[in-house]
């Protein structure tokens, strides 16, 4: 419940309040960046004699809302949802965007992004006996933006996403302890809109 409230705040109330603040304090205009995309990677399992390699593709959505500190730099809080195959995680954290190019009338610009936070497992539903717990999330990347400065635009972001998680597993015959540490290392390709 606490998670839902925080999610509601970050997605709706905070952007609204930030938007209102924009009219009051135009010094730091409101910044918004919402994206949807995929997390691409692979996993190697088994032992040396029987190694199995599988590809992984998962859905990811994210919204970042904050303020523009300058014409190039924007920072804000982020919340998202990552549907990994074995875990549904909700990253909550902070992010920054820095535009490479001097804002001008040109339609195409590049930017770097840096997001970090903690992926919570509030909405995860696991099989009986399994408990998924979240972990740290890091997501640095680069992207391009289509659209004139000061107006809405479309973005394409390429980033590396590292998400940690812990899984408690049910014990089987003869076992007294069984846990799993997960580190998702993914290429994230997302499209989105920014304001």
């Amino acid at each position, binding site marked *: 419940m606490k998670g839902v409230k925080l999610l509601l705040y970050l997605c709706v109330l905070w952007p609204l309040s930030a938007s209102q603040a924009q009219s009051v304090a135009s010094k730091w205009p409101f910044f918004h960046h919402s994206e949807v995309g995929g997390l*691409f*990677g*692979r*996993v*190697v*399992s*088994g*032992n040396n*004699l*029987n190694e*199995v390699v*599988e590809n*992984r593709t998962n859905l990811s959505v994210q919204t970042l809302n904050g303020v523009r500190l300058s014409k190039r730099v924007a920072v804000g809080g982020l919340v998202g949802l990552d549907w*990994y*195959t*074995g875990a549904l995680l909700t990253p909550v954290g902070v992010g920054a965007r820095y535009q*490479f*190019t001097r804002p001008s009338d040109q339609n*195409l610009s*590049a930017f770097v992004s840096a997001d970090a936070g903690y992926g919570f497992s509030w909405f995860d539903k696991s099989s*009986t*006996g399994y408990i998924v717990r979240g972990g740290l999330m890091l997501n640095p990347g*680069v992207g*391009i933006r289509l659209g004139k400065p000061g107006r809405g635009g479309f973005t394409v972001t*390429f980033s*590396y996403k590292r998400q940690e998680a812990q899984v*408690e*597993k*049910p*014990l*089987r*015959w*003869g*076992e*007294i*302890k*069984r*846990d*799993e*540490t*997960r*580190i*998702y*290392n*993914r*290429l994230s*390709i997302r499209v989105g809109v920014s304001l």
Partner: protein
Amino acid sequence: MKRILYSIPVLFLALFGVACTDKCTETRTFRRFTPVTLTLAQVRQGIGSEAPRTLQKPGKIYTKDGFLFINELKEGIHVIDNRNPNAPQMVSFIRIPGNGDMAVRNNILYADSYMDLVAFDISDATNIRPVNRVNNIFPNGQFEGGYWYINQATGDVQDQRVDYVTERIQTNCQDNVGPTGGWWGGVVFFDTRGLMNAAPSTSGGGGQQQSTNGTAGSMARFALYNNYLYTVNSTEMQLFDIRNPADPKVGNKIQMGWGIETIFPYKDKLFIGSQTGMFIYDNKNPEKPERLSVFQHARVCDPVVVHEDKAYVTLRSGNTCQGFTNQLDVVDISNLLSPKLIKSYPMRNPHGLGIDFPNLFICEGAYGLKSFDARDALNIDKNLREHIKDIDAYDVIPLDKSLLMIGRDGFYQYDYSNPKQLRLMSKIPVKRPNAIS
């Protein structure tokens, strides 16, 4: 600008190839069994009292009159002067091959030694000596999930040595993976429907019990009541008449069904934990307990403790108990003929438990010790007072604000005057060659 834009896809393709591989590592610790054969002479001539030694593989705990008895699995019993809980002193070690359980009445300690029951005079803790023995009374048993039995053809004891092994494997971050082929490798199994015998022996209870009985934990197989010593193995309850404590006589044998694990005496009732449920026996006639009812549950292991009209039963999986249930069941036993589940609470891997109402302590095995306030039976999970995670906990005895706890790491004593913050008073560590990494 264009150069930067063009380099983006190249950069990330390189990243994808090199870095974008999930890394999921499962760490598990399990038992490995190796068969062992002992002759009857080895078992019976191996008994004796000797100088204190370090804990290596602690089993059950038992306490009486300020003295503490810690079972060294299949080796014997450590005798510890615990009159000052802040500084317990090792006094002696009783060497008893095949020992797992114990109970004390007056100055007589009863201990199993594979198939025999042995009575010791413990009047002098530094010179404990056997005074009597009941031969061939226990046909089989189990230690740490491995069964032992008497080989009728040779007359030898067939047992299993248990080692703990930790291994790490790479998983696919998604499913269970099967055994790697390594962890069953080279292992010989018997049927092992036991569980970790890492907890104390019993006989807390009540009724007309004499003040000279000791106190045990929830996972004990021995209990004292009235003029009888009650022992349970996997299928039956064996009574011993101890009117003369130094001379135990074989009493009635009661068939109980399969999967019997623990016995907990409370007032004039006996609560039996089994792999299929909790049995309630009326013990008004201590010579011949009669079954009143059964509270059935999934096939798992389940020690039980009782306070007034409620029984607290922990169910766990992960070993010979099988099943995939790990929970605490609170059972209404106000009507002993028809026990009813009040509520179940999910747990990690609960083992022994103890209650000093309203304080409820639950051992979570390798996942530590939990302290609850049990006043609200419908919201016990919301009243977790403390979870000590960095210890290994198998069974507890709450004893007048002093919590005795045994685990694979050693023996711990906590002051639980403030149940929200247990204060460690002392610890006797385990010094084991093959400790879990």
